[in-house]
């Protein structure tokens, strides 16, 4: 087990290094003039050159690369050309919102996915109808789902808000994590908690549709296979109720592929996050990335990519380790 973790950790570092290299190469080949974007259209050519020198854009490529590696390794991601803050500071501002959204969406996806898979394994017409609805929902472009959801639940029914993380007149707790649900609980603020929850529902649900379907599908298949196993037959012969068998034996032993699926889906979540954060005015990394793209703000784009790529790699690492811990059969992989 330790061996496995060790090997995986080494792999993790190697992958992160590769990611840093690729990100640098990509942003270095893009022709643009960020120095001028910073000093403005009316600045003199000297001012532009001075800014370019200050930002290090006039150095030769190999030197920029080594600078970049050194800086990144020590946690210095330069300053955003647009906000003029350190990129790490910007990331710290925007990451919690995305983390909260991603976690909520993941929880929702798991709940819906597992629920649907169990229903499907138990059989019944309602399960099939539900599956069809889920497939339909997961086949429509995300931005449309989002806008239609706002149209129905906000414009039509007036029960959910159209955007933001909380009602705008509320003061946010100066919390430890930046994730409002948690911070509000810690600060004992039910108003912020309730508002944050209400604001989370639509965006999290929109994000969760596609992963939920993928998880449901994978889990349903593995569940059906597991339920045919000898030991399940034995349990049934012993007189255990079907539901108990399903939950106790079936679910636990089928978790593997679904878990892996969940980890992989986390990566697909990113494209969805950029869209959802835009439509729901969610102040997270997706919004930051969008604004950075519009400004050709390369330090910000680079920093955000590194952060998200790292998060993805780490999540999959944890999934791998968790699977190995749960199922001894795969420890030698």
């Amino acid at each position, binding site marked *: 087990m330790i061996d496995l973790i060790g090997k995986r950790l080494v792999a993790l570092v190697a992958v992160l290094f590769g990611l840093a290299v690729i990100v640098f190469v990509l942003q270095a080949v893009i*022709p*643009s*003039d*960020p120095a*001028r*974007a910073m*000093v*403005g*259209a*009316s*600045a*003199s050519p000297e001012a532009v050159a001075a800014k370019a020198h200050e930002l290090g854009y006039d150095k030769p490529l190999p030197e920029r690369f080594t600078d970049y590696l050194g800086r990144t390794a020590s946690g210095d991601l330069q300053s955003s050309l*647009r*906000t*003029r*803050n350190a990129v790490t500071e*910007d990331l710290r*501002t*925007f990451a919690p*919102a995305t983390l909260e959204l991603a976690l909520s969406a993941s929880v929702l996806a798991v709940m819906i996915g597992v*629920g649907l898979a*169990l*229903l499907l394994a*138990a059989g019944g017409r309602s399960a099939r109808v539900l599956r069809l609805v889920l497939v339909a929902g997961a086949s429509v472009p995300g931005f449309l789902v989002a*806008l239609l959801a*706002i*149209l129905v639940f*906000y*414009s039509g029914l*007036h*029960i*959910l*808000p*159209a*955007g*933001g*993380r909380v009602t*705008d007149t509320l003061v946010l707790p100066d919390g430890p994590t930046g994730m409002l649900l948690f911070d509000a609980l810690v600060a004992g603020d*039910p*108003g912020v908690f*309730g*508002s944050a*929850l*209400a*604001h989370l*529902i639509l965006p999290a649900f929109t994000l969760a549709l596609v992963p939920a379907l993928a998880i449901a599908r994978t889990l349903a298949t593995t569940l059906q296979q597991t339920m045919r196993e000898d030991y399940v037959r034995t349990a049934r012969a012993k007189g255990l109720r079907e539901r108990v068998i399903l939950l106790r034996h079936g679910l636990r032993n089928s978790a593997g592929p679904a878990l892996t699926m969940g980890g992989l889906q986390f990566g697909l979540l990113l494209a969805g996050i950029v869209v959802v*954060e*835009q*439509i729901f*005015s969610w*102040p*997270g990394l997706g*919004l930051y990335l*969008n*604004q950075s*793209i*519009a*400004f*050709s*703000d390369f330090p910000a784009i680079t920093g955000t990519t590194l952060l998200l790529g790292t998060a993805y790699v780490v999540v999959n690492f944890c999934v791998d380790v968790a699977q190995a811990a749960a199922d001894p059969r795969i420890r030698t992989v």
Partner: protein
Amino acid sequence: MTRWISAVAVAVAVTLAGCGSTEKKSTSATSDVLRIPYLADMSVPDPDVFYDVEGNSVILNQYEGLLKYADNSTKIVGALADSWTVSPDRLTYTFKLHPGVKFHSGAPLTSKSVKAAFERRLDVDNAPAYMLKPVKSMSTPDDLTFVVTLKSPVNPFEAYMASSWGPKIIGPDAIKTHAGKDFGQKWLATHGDGTGPYKLTGFERGRQYTLTRNDDYWGTKANFKTVLIKITPDIGTQRLQLQNGDLDAVVKSFPASELETLPDDVVVQKKDSNLRLLLYVNPNKAPFDDPAVRAGLRATIDVDQYAAEAYAGTATKSVGAYPEALLADQPTLPYKVDDAAAKAAAARASTKKITLAYTADESGVQRRVGELLQAKLKTAGYDVTLREVQLPDTYGYVKHLKTAPDLMLQTNTPDAAHPDTWARIVYYSTGGLNFFGYNDKQVDSKLDAALDAPEAEATKLYQEVGRRVIDSDAFFFLGNVKDVFVLRDDLEGVTSTPEYPWTIWYAPLKRAGT
């Protein structure tokens, strides 16, 4: 299983019903709050650094300069200066300041504060600093008199003072108390100290900015106690929130074709602005390095179609090479749709494959003009590739002219309502918005001469520059874009100025019936 699910569903429904519901905003408490959306964060609320457009309303309602443009006109009137005089040699400007003005921090405004603010702009030396570069010296003979002496006459100097990016008088909280090592830039990135009718009391990037009424304002106090600028990146969401009463006004990028389908409690105002849609032509590479081929483009421009279809009536035909309000007596533009002529000119082109770029914007209007223009060019015989680009990318074209696009659509507004602030940025060989490096020595020398020439002669020089630009066929003027404000019908007192696009004054606003 289903019992569990229904139990959870009930619990969730109860929670929802209890909190976070959104009824229409009709209580008196919320009529005290004005909600305005922005499509993106502004760069920083620091007047000496800020050089975007969306964000002007935060700066202009918080800070004041010595001069400003009067509502709905290009007339320059006093703001913090009650009056001013210009010496006959046009080198010395003497401003008489309004007495009894206090900064948001409480400190009084004196001529020394003005001098400190001007010096800070030069120290920070960022985008808008060029407006003060011609200054030779400044003096403060008494508390309410501020004198500026220029190195040589600069005709647009008053326009600079009135510009939305012109020098704003920033208070001592920024300049002295929190100066730090960077002239207070770090503090001003999230705080403010101005003299205007609103103070910046909150700046949460990505979420919202909070402006609170300045109850000690020297002018007419604002009606709304709080203004919330909400960052709402999607125009569809903005529309829905406006219709539902959760936003009070959408002032930028509302899709023009959707204006007719708004409900009855939302009204539309279309105001003149100095925004202009330009078609830049790259004269440094084939096929448009051939003047005859360039001239053929005149026959492909269908301004009526753009105004009617792409802009759905929110743009008008352009006259001359300058925004109309900046220069009188400009010639009509020689564009006339003529498919045969266009084909003939295109036949001479050394290559038919061209790229037409346009800068991205939320309303999609430049893309639509691009598509319409593409269709016309195709009829003429070109093989056109459309390309959406971001504005910062366009600044790099001047260094890579051979690989830059052949044509580009871009909407510009002058820094101030003076022909120099338009021509210098767009037509001067080193102009910041001269994306394709248009280089005409005569234009450069005329603009330089006009900078300090007497008014009549300067006007003549500007007109000559305009003539040369039109004849060069390196720039085409596709339309004057109106400022379109989409407002809740219970919002009264909406005022704006053409020179400050996408901006309304918050102080005079009030809700009907309050």
